[in-house]
């Protein structure tokens, strides 16, 4: 990965993302009357300052290292330890599986999404046999149905595309 000030660009991304969110939050806050925006705006301004400090502390410049030593000594030491490194692709795929499941829950409902997701995950990502995957999928669905639908008489969300609101 390319580096800026001695640190891989990827390491800065969360802080940048947060800065963006905070800026939008601040813009939204100023549309509310003074009473309502007072404290959220104060917090947001402080956040922008802190994020700036954090960004600098992550660089390998002199100021950055100094900030790290004052404010994040433990993190400094942990960074020096070997941490397992995973490729961005692998992490994104894991997140996509989760998002896909959440989307399925909302679109086709709990009773369809759960077995589908468990089956797909154990079979495709886990490499288990069809029999094992189906067993786990059925077991999970049955457990959830017994607990929520049967015992708690909770209506399991049917999915926006099928019957839901």
């Amino acid at each position: 990965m390319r580096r800026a000030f001695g640190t891989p660009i990827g390491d800065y991304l969360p802080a940048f993302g947060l800065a963006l969110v905070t800026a939008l939050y601040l813009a939204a806050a100023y549309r509310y009357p003074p009473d309502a925006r007072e404290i959220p705006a104060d917090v947001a301004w402080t956040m922008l300052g802190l994020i700036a400090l954090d960004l600098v502390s992550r660089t390998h410049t002199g100021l950055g290292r100094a900030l790290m030593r004052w404010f994040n000594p433990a993190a400094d030491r942990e960074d020096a330890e070997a941490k397992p490194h995973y490729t961005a692709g692998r992490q994104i795929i894991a997140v996509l599986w989760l998002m896909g499941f959440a989307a399925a829950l909302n679109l086709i409902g709990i009773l369809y999404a759960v077995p589908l997701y468990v089956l797909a995950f154990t079979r495709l990502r886990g490499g288990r046999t069809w029999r094992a995957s189906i067993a786990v999928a059925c077991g999970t669905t049955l457990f959830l149905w017994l607990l929520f639908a049967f015992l708690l008489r909770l209506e399991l969300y049917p999915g926006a595309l099928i019957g839901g609101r």
Partner: protein
Amino acid sequence: MLDVWLSGLQGILQVRELLFLALGMVIGLLFGAIPGLGGSTALALLMPFTYGLESFAALALSGGVMGAVPMGGSISAILLNAPGTAPSAATCLDGYPLARQGKAGLAIGAAASANSVGGIIGTVTVLAVLPIAKRLVLLFGPPEFFLLAVLGLVVVATTSRGKLLRGLITGGFGLMVAFIGYDDITGDVRFTLGIPYLWDGVHLVPALIGLFAVAEMIDLSIRGGSVAREAGNVRITRTLSGVLATFRHWRTVLRGSIIGTVVGAIPGVGGVVASFLSYSLTVQASRDPESFGKGNIEGVIAPEAAINAKDGSALIPTLAFGIPGGAEMAVFLGILVLHGMQPGPMMLIQHQPEIYGLIWALTAACILASFIGLLFVRPLALVTLVPAEILVPVITCIALVGSFAVDASIENTVVTAVFGVLGYIMIRFDYPRLTIVIALVLGATAERNFHQAMLMADGSWSIFVTRTISLILLAGIAALPCLPILRARLRRGRGSGPVSAGDQR
């Protein structure tokens, strides 16, 4: 006084009541262990059944549930980083790393004994305080609640000393999220982007399930293997040493129990603050703060003691005035009303035996639930050996569906998923999760109480110094950041002996 205590005990020690206690306990354990369910759901489920029951039986049942839920929550927090109840999220911080090192038995043992001891200390405190409960509740108003919230935030912020900057950032983010929704003071609806679901703000339990359980499942699915790093290392036999660890670290237990008792009595703040505050203060007081978050047994004992101590004291505002300390207490209030026991000043006068019976039931359930947890340590700890390909989808399902079940909103699953990804990013890029939790819980409370205090005082800040308790709290807040410096200086002075004595001239 003693005779009332005894008549309460007598009421509970009947066969039928004990059976209901046991039933409540089992249900409490199960519901406590599953994220998204918990005491409030269990009590709501049982409420119709309590209809025909007499008061003591209903209270035995309720006490059984409320006493056992924390232990259930601890078990899933330790084994899977999936807090069964919101307060157990603090147990995840060191309990789960222990499980990853194959020491699940040790962690569960410590949790069980800390639970019991904390519960007992909480009970004793409540019994002592109950006669003056009314006066106590009236001492704390909006100015005090605001300062307490600030105190909580400061404690937690100064705890992440090793990562102060990042801790403050996540805390600030938590505050920003906490302000989303309908503002009780002005009536404005803020930061909801027009989404009706966000009217009540970001729901806490789904967010916590995401931050801890789902984030961990994402991490597990990437790194593979199982929760316990090396299968051969899962030592169940260390359970006993876990149980004894609580007594070795008696200062931690005491501290946790006191914090739990005090915080539990503050309505609307709840168990999350109790457990996280206890954890934070223990880290601060420790000689080796950086070992926390990596499997320090005190990191399990501290929150566990607080959680069970809070259960008893949460009854104080609930019974004295009908102000529920949280969702669980709100449902319990309903059960009380159902049985003709109107919470309020009269309750403490008219229904004393029943109240003491309840407190006995709570304590008994807490201790017995710990035993049951210990009994099942071996099969439970096997969960840490289940391979990721199977564990991840199953736990993710339970987490998301449980989060839906909190109040039957499918939007909760989106919150959980988003916070899951957020939690994972925080793990990956090294931002502490401790501060965001406290900020989420205390943010809205702090702001609301501040505005109320200002309305009371017509905008003058003097209200914070003219009230006794506020003044004490202010002093505490000012002193807190200085404590670590003081302690370090003391330690240096003690350790260095004659050399430092010379230096201090």
